[in-house]
């Protein structure tokens, strides 16, 4: 197909300009910033890899790396799995389905800081309803955010609460465009249930699924606001995700170089995982 350069240009330019100016340029500045340090008077000096070597010799950094990976390794599969099931359940138009669908997406409309504040109250051992109910049904009061063992799990729970309905939408959009005749043809060939899922649904869902995988990973690796609002990285560093470390470095220790170094590391990790995800979902043609 003959495509004029100017056509390509026209299609790409507005978006790429916006990205370049408001995202890529600052990202580049941030990455470069990781190689500098600031004096208290605001003068910047080049320090090479110093910020990075300091990070690698800091236990706090390794702890937050561990916490972040643990958080994502558990949260992402749960969210995507639940979202997929939910999408399949709401697929068929039926009475009341649109109302139900709306309720699934509503948690996403609550801003991150408010979500955190509300859940902090809900799970509070003294003031919160959840513990009241747990006491009543015999399980007993749980410390949730106030316990080293439960805090991270509690964050995973609220992230799931907030995001599952949202990711469901994307998968739903993908399920909808699978034409009915494809299923009909498969039925004729005798492919049912599990086989149909593996050989028809799943391959046709690879593209939306890849999207959800990459996007969800990126968003969850950048998880920060609830930690800042609720737990301050504790108890005992058990919820100190990388982004929280970056925030502390910048706004508390006033060490911008260190903060940017951490952000760059996060960027590299997410890009690597994304690359793996692309590989994983590869089919014969480009995905």
């Amino acid at each position, binding site marked *: 197909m003959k495509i004029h350069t100017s056509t390509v240009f026209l299609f790409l330019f507005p978006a790429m300009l916006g990205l370049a100016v408001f995202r890529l340029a600052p990202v580049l500045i941030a990455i470069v910033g990781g190689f500098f340090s600031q004096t*208290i008077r605001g003068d910047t000096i080049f320090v090479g890899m110093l910020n990075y070597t300091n990070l690698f010799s800091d236990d706090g950094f390794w702890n937050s790396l561990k916490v972040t990976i643990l958080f994502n390794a558990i949260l992402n599969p749960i969210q995507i799995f639940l979202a997929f099931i939910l999408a399949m359940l709401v697929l068929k138009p039926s009475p009341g389905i649109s109302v139900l669908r709306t309720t699934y997406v509503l948690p996403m409309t609550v801003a991150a800081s408010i979500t955190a504040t509300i859940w902090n109250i809900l799970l509070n*051992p003294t003031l919160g309803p959840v513990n009241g109910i747990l006491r009543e049904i015999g399980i007993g009061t749980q410390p949730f955010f106030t316990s080293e063992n439960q805090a991270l799990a509690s964050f995973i729970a609220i992230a799931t609460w907030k995001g599952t309905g949202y990711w469901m939408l994307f998968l739903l959009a993908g399920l909808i465009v699978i034409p009915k005749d494809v299923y009909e043809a498969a039925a004729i060939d005798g492919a049912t249930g599990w086989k149909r899922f593996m050989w028809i649904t799943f391959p046709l869902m690879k593209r939306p699924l890849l999207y959800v995988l990459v996007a969800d990973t990126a968003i969850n690796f950048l998880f920060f606001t609830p930690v800042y609002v609720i737990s301050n990285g504790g*108890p*005992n560093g058990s919820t100190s995700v990388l982004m929280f470390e970056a925030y502390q470095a910048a706004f508390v220790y006033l060490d*911008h170089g260190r903060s940017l170094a951490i952000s760059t590391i996060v960027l590299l990790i997410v890009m690597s995982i994304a690359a793996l995800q692309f590989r994983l979902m590869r089919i014969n043609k480009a995905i």
Partner: protein
Amino acid sequence: MISKNLIRSLAILFIAVIEILHSARAGELNVVWMGWPEEYVAPLMKGFQSANPDVQLKIERIPFVQIMQTLEVRLSARESTPDIFMCDGSLTSSYAARGHALDLSSVIDRNRLTPSAASQASFDGKIYSAPFGSSSQQLYYNKDLFKAAGIEPPSADPSKRWTWEKVVEVARKLRDPKNNVYGLVIAQADRPFQLLPLGQSKGGVPISPDGLKATGYIDTKPFIDAFTFYQKMYNEWDIAPKGLFQINLNEELFRTGKAAMFIGGTFNMEEIAKYPKLNWGMGLHPYFEGGKPVTPTGAWHFCVNPRSKDLVSARKFVQYFMSEDVHSKWLQMRPYPPVLNQIWTKEKTYFDRNPGWALVRHELSNTAVPRPPIVGWREYEAILLQAIQDINNGVDVSKRLSVAAQLIDREMVKYK
């Protein structure tokens, strides 16, 4: 496709090269103020406007939760705005050392200020911020819970001030797990502001005089003992709600009758009035047996940006907001203990309405110790706060304080 990349590069260059400095016209002040309700801020600002019609005020109220971070972002840009910004008094040295605060010695007379306000506003012997309202902490108690248990409540008489040991003894009696009632709730359960006085009551000194060394100070016996005591309140003795650090939630506990005793700020005197079901009384902040009484204090100050394009108007702003008139008005709106000596005498009728004020005055004059005015207060506070949270959770006190001291020392290096 080179043309595409070239154009993109040019666009970026073009924008970067546009150094359109958004010059604030002379006669315009950008003010970042605390997110107090509009009805408290507007009258004062309007007052300034009418007295100074040639100055345009652009005011932003930023919520307490975010004001520090927002200011950091704005100030990092090292531009001419904000012209005036509000800050926690103990950060004065930090801002001054980093070149974000203007020397106000010529505009503010140190002798008008209460001693603790003056010390908070100073750096290197000069005044760098304008105090706007102070604070103190009192021991509130629930009259009904004390009556029901037949226990004599804490006294408002300074000579009969309760010790921490007595507070704990009573709290253990009044703790009622079945009804979710706590013996004692501390408002800011993880903040150095609230808790340094415990160690100080045992004679501890939080940091070296030059503000650069914490090892040998925060990790010594007085603080180890004080924080161990603190830890027991939340664990072994179970009189206080473990892991609850949110100020607002702690306040709610007392206000809804779930705490027999409560250590909180002066403003609670007015806020609690909104909860008619609560029968409350006020006593004095506790001290350790054998030690001396030490109470927290602190204030909201505001600073002037030295890079401001209109220093003349900025100085006028400072003078206006440091006038007795404005401080009187402010006192009527929010019950912050005044920082101007004159106001204490001038507003006698206001203070006489509530006997609690006599307590507050006593504390401010005798036992209040402001936080150490060190350059690295931000770092010090944050590191210690995390240590306190972990201590609250049950870790080894001595080790944790040691670790914190080392971290603090590390961060203070940049200020040498």
